[in-house]
């Protein structure tokens, strides 16, 4: 009965492997070209990401969704190689569902974190080869404890709990400083921000990242392209619609100098 409810184990029995090393890798210049961020606000946790996908200096796609809902109460934001990241999200999504349906109880929040770690660990060969490095931020609402939580990982699967915020991707150095400054000397700490202000904050942070990082996509109003923002509260994950972001962006983010 030991491994009951373990979907990854079930897949492996069927011959599945995640992140087999594909030799090539000499280049260790990993392009984590993106910006993702998560911070706790008054009602829960906000997770946001830009929508640009790049390959070298080429923009591949401007409508990527890097903030992915894994279940009703957890979200994974991905930076790194999208192919591997999406695969991991698919495995996680099925793992959590499979656990819940077989064991007739929700997988605990710690159990979910462990599942993310395990996947990253399995992926180490590919990550080191340079073909599959993923640096995710995992955020969710721990229903048992009634609190929002944020964790970030390195490519080897080490898990770190973020007290207030976490960032990842190539644009993250820019906004990490801003987050620290805001949270320490701003009018109010991030964790006290009401929903609307939290959204404005996220839009401003992503705009800053886009300003200094060519691989982070900003807002493209002509094409109605806004970042992806998800809010996780005790009631579940909620995706902020473009119609909500548009007025916020226009009134509180754009500055006509």
């Amino acid at each position: 009965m030991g491994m009951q409810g373990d979907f990854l184990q079930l897949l492996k029995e069927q011959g599945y492997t995640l992140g087999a090393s594909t030799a090539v890798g000499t280049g260790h210049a990993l392009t984590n070209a993106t910006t993702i961020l998560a911070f706790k606000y008054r009602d829960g946790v906000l997770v946001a990401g830009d929508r640009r996908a790049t390959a070298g200096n080429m923009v591949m796609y401007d409508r990527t969704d890097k903030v992915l809902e894994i279940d009703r109460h957890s979200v994974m934001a991905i930076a790194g190689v999208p192919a591997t990241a999406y695969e991991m999200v698919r495995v996680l999504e099925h793992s959590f569902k499979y656990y819940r349906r077989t064991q007739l109880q929700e997988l605990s929040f710690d159990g979910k974190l462990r599942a993310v770690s395990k996947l990253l660990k399995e992926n180490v060969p590919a990550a080191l080869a340079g073909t599959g490095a993923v640096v995710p931020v995992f955020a969710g609402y721990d229903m048992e404890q009634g609190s929002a939580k944020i964790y970030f990982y390195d490519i080897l699967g080490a898990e770190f709990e973020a007290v207030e915020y976490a960032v990842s991707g190539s644009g993250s150095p820019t906004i990490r400083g801003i987050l620290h400054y805001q949270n320490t000397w701003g009018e109010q700490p991030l964790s006290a921000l009401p929903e609307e202000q939290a959204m404005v904050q996220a839009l401003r942070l992503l705009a800053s990242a886009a300003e200094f990082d060519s691989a982070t996509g900003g807002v493209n109003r002509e094409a109605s392209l806004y970042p992806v923002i998800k809010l996780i509260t005790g009631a579940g994950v909620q995706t902020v619609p473009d119609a909500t972001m548009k007025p916020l962006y226009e009134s509180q983010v754009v500055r006509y100098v």
Partner: protein
Amino acid sequence: MYEEPYRWVEAVGNRRQYLDEQFKQGSPVVALSYDGGILLTTVSKGTPKLYEIYDRLALGGMGHPTDLEKIRFSLLEMAHVEGFNRSPSDVTGSRLVKYGIAPVIKQAFEEVYKAPFIVRILVAELGQKPEKDALLTINYDGTFEETTGRAVLAATPAVQTKMMSYLKEQQPAPLSLEQALDLALRAWAIGSLAHQQDEADQQAEAKPQTSNAASSAAAIPSSDTLIAHVRSIAGERTIECAILERQAPGSSKYRSLKQMDLSRLLPAALQSVVAN
């Protein structure tokens, strides 16, 4: 000795008799379409009989709890592996039943050296559109049937027919969830009463021919009588309800109805049963 064809046929016949006997104490299961999806209901004792299988698939069962668990795990494995390797929309009830679980049940039934599965199962599938909804039932010998709108599991084919014809007769389309729940429980009561009647007939044993005829010909009891029967049984058991809800947020459409939902949805005469 089973190598002789005659012996084998005899052994399978015995097995059928043995299995039929196992379901007599069982609680019927009713599945019914309503305007927002599909409702499954039964009255269970101890172990639950309704389960979630996949995003749009639910399972209801009668029989031995351990066998039902085995079947449930096989279905879950098949559904999730398929949903991962292909896509969630490729996981259909009809494929799972016809090519997945029914052959396994049939094989176990015919391997007379081994124990058969003591189960009758019902798989409900919520289609992308209401006209794609499907209800599949599998008997202990692996025979499966696919229907729409309504399906039942009961101890004998006669009882099943009785319940089905009651559902057909009473069902104005489309039902709200409250109406569906009320009707489903009345149909359940018909099945449950018929099981009790069969049991009583068997014990009386005096004139099985005439009493059988009398019980099957007996008029369908009134709605109040049926609800009163559910009430009398539900006191020491649990009314179990699950729905596949078309409008549910997210990909998983299955939801089992909690006490709170039930006290709102159940017919007035039954609300006190859930309350305590």
